[in-house]
């Protein structure tokens, strides 16, 4: 990927333009929060339902600014060794053997040699603190709600002071703070102490107009009528009482699936066959399939034609 470093945007409108370049259609609330986060060097905390484009923000930001993207995918039990750093034990053992063979003495010297940067395996959090010629990298901490509280507590130090302490080596401090984007699907409430250090933005499902704009930007090959009908259908589907509402990611996937089936407009048969792309729970599919889908389809077609 080609990277050309760029200065940070100077206003909310610049942020909107920057994201639009990366084919990300943001609303003003997200752009304002992102603008503040860039200006005041604090993390951006994104919350919202699954598939509304939280992770995408960081990716687009990195490529548009020409910065490196470091991604830390969270999961339960995530520990320091995978998130921040680890010592290369095998090489350290070897080093001890070499030192012994060379009859080196002085435990102190050996120990100093062993715990030096040479043997340090750097993971995303530590990498994010290192200087980069293109400018500080974008650090994406994805799905923070999947980890446990101890890890959140550890993250506090990194995110508030942009420093990390390694007992054997000392404290590593970032010369310039990285651009941090934290996302959460809200399967658990993240602790307030962490949120307090961030700018918060809630990403909602987009309205019809913005969803159409996103669809046009992301799937330009979709026929105009198809795009309108898809958006109309999905928007109406979100008003239904479903277990899992379709996100933007599903809208895009669905449109691509319909294009692969050579459709330029929605028809009952195509909807029936591809409903699984849109809905991910069997109960929801069973509810919508058949009569309900046809009714939605008629409404969507009428809405798309009327505009």
């Amino acid at each position, binding site marked *: 990927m080609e990277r050309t470093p760029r200065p940070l945007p100077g206003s909310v409108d610049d942020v909107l333009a920057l994201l639009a370049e990366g084919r990300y259609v943001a609303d003003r609330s997200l752009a304002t929060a992102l603008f503040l986060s860039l200006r*005041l060097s604090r993390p951006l905390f994104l919350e919202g339902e699954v598939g509304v484009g939280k992770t995408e923000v960081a990716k687009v930001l990195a490529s548009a600014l020409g910065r490196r993207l470091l991604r830390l995918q969270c999961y339960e039990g995530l520990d320091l060794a995978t998130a921040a750093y680890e010592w290369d034990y095998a090489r350290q053992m070897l080093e001890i053997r070499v030192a012994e063979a060379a009859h080196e003495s002085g435990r102190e010297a050996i120990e100093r040699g062993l715990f030096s940067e040479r043997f340090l395996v750097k993971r995303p959090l530590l990498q994010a603190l290192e200087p980069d010629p293109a400018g500080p990298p974008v650090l994406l901490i994805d799905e923070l709600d999947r980890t*446990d509280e101890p890890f959140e507590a550890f993250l506090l130090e990194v995110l508030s002071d942009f420093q990390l302490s390694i007992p054997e080596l000392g404290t590593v401090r970032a010369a310039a703070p990285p651009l941090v984007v934290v996302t959460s699907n809200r399967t658990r409430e993240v602790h307030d102490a962490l949120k307090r250090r961030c700018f918060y933005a809630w990403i909602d499902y987009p309205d019809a107009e913005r969803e159409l704009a996103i669809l046009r930007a992301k799937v330009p090959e979709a026929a105009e009528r198809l795009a309108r009908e898809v958006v109309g259908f999905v928007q109406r589907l979100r008003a239904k009482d479903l277990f899992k509402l379709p996100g933007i990611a599903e809208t895009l996937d669905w449109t691509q699936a319909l294009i692969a089936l050579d459709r330029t407009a929605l028809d009952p048969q195509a909807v029936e066959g591809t409903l699984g792309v849109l809905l991910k729970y069997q109960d929801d599919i069973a509810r919508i399939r058949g009569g309900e889908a046809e009714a939605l389809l008629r409404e969507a077609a009428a809405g798309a034609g009327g505009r």
Partner: protein
Amino acid sequence: MSEGGQLPARVLHFARALRAAGLPIGPGRVLTAVEAAAEVGLSRRDDLYWALHAVLVSRAEDRALFDQAFRLAWREPEALPPGLELLLSHSPLPSPRPAPLRRVAEALSPSRALPAAPPRAVEVDAVLAWSEREQLRTRDFEQLSAAEVREAERAVARLRLPLPELPVRRMRPDPAGVRVDQRATLRQAVRAGPDAIPLRWRSPSRRPPAVVALCDVSGSMARYSRMLLRFLHALTRSRAQVHSFTFGTRLTPVTRHLRHRDVDAALAAVGRAVPDWEGGTRIGPCLREFNLRWSRRLLSQGAVVLLMTDGLDRSEGADLAAETARLRRSCRRLVWLNPLLRFQGFEPRAAGVRAILPNVDEHRPVHSLDSLERLAEALSAPRRGGRRATSARPTAP
């Protein structure tokens, strides 16, 4: 910009009003808010809105409150309008003036919100002898006198629920562990010298599972729900990660109310929060509400769900079966605590009971102290068979 100098003061005022309305805003956030407001300036109202939003809001639930407050506070270039005071009455926090404790209130006037046990004709002495206490353990909550209820309540408050802990991927040092702790071993090797490398061990650490309790407070459960809420209060105080809901005709989260240290104050708060106390039962819709709105947030990390109900449902059965099944699929273990199960000849005849029964992992009685204690034992014992028993058979009381 003429009012540039006034901006910090107004932001300050606004943040303070939001804090009074219950948003967690400390002084650090207020400073950031001032900074953020200066950064976007006053040229666009919506920019100011979202800038303050990004700083002062940190929970999705607070968005509506923020919106309301902003519209009031930044309507005109004046000081905060007096209308903002109205917000304070919507405050989700308990009012600063402590309400008189339930037991005090009850002494003055019996209230309908949280029914105390009606006094029996024969009152026994408040301090029970040992043999009486022994009797109390197996007596049905429904048949206790007022004094016995108090005694039982004290016993309930001492109950604990030692659920088996879940393994976590995180490791901790453990001399009897199964994996080599490379970092500790290496440090030891440097210190010990060239002859030998003493190994250090570690093993996965464990954590207690979350508990989610759904307690039926409808009319048919009245006698038991009071005792069960006390049990939940004791549970909430003794372990982390307990989430409680009550339901009758609607689902009400009561976790926050039960956190109150004093059990009477906690139950009074629950009584105020629950609108459908001793009303009808619509288990299916309530479970549906839980599945839609709460299950993803509370059940993602291996929670045990305690469903406390007699299964006597006013709404029809089909929905209830599907919702119970969904609930079971999304949690680690679904335990049905049913006070009606005390009867030896309990047969699942009611439609509601028949709908729930095949969809739970375990079905246990909760009608006496003894059964509550045995519940604690049963839940802490290693699971019989696999992860799911194929059908939960009622356990004889």
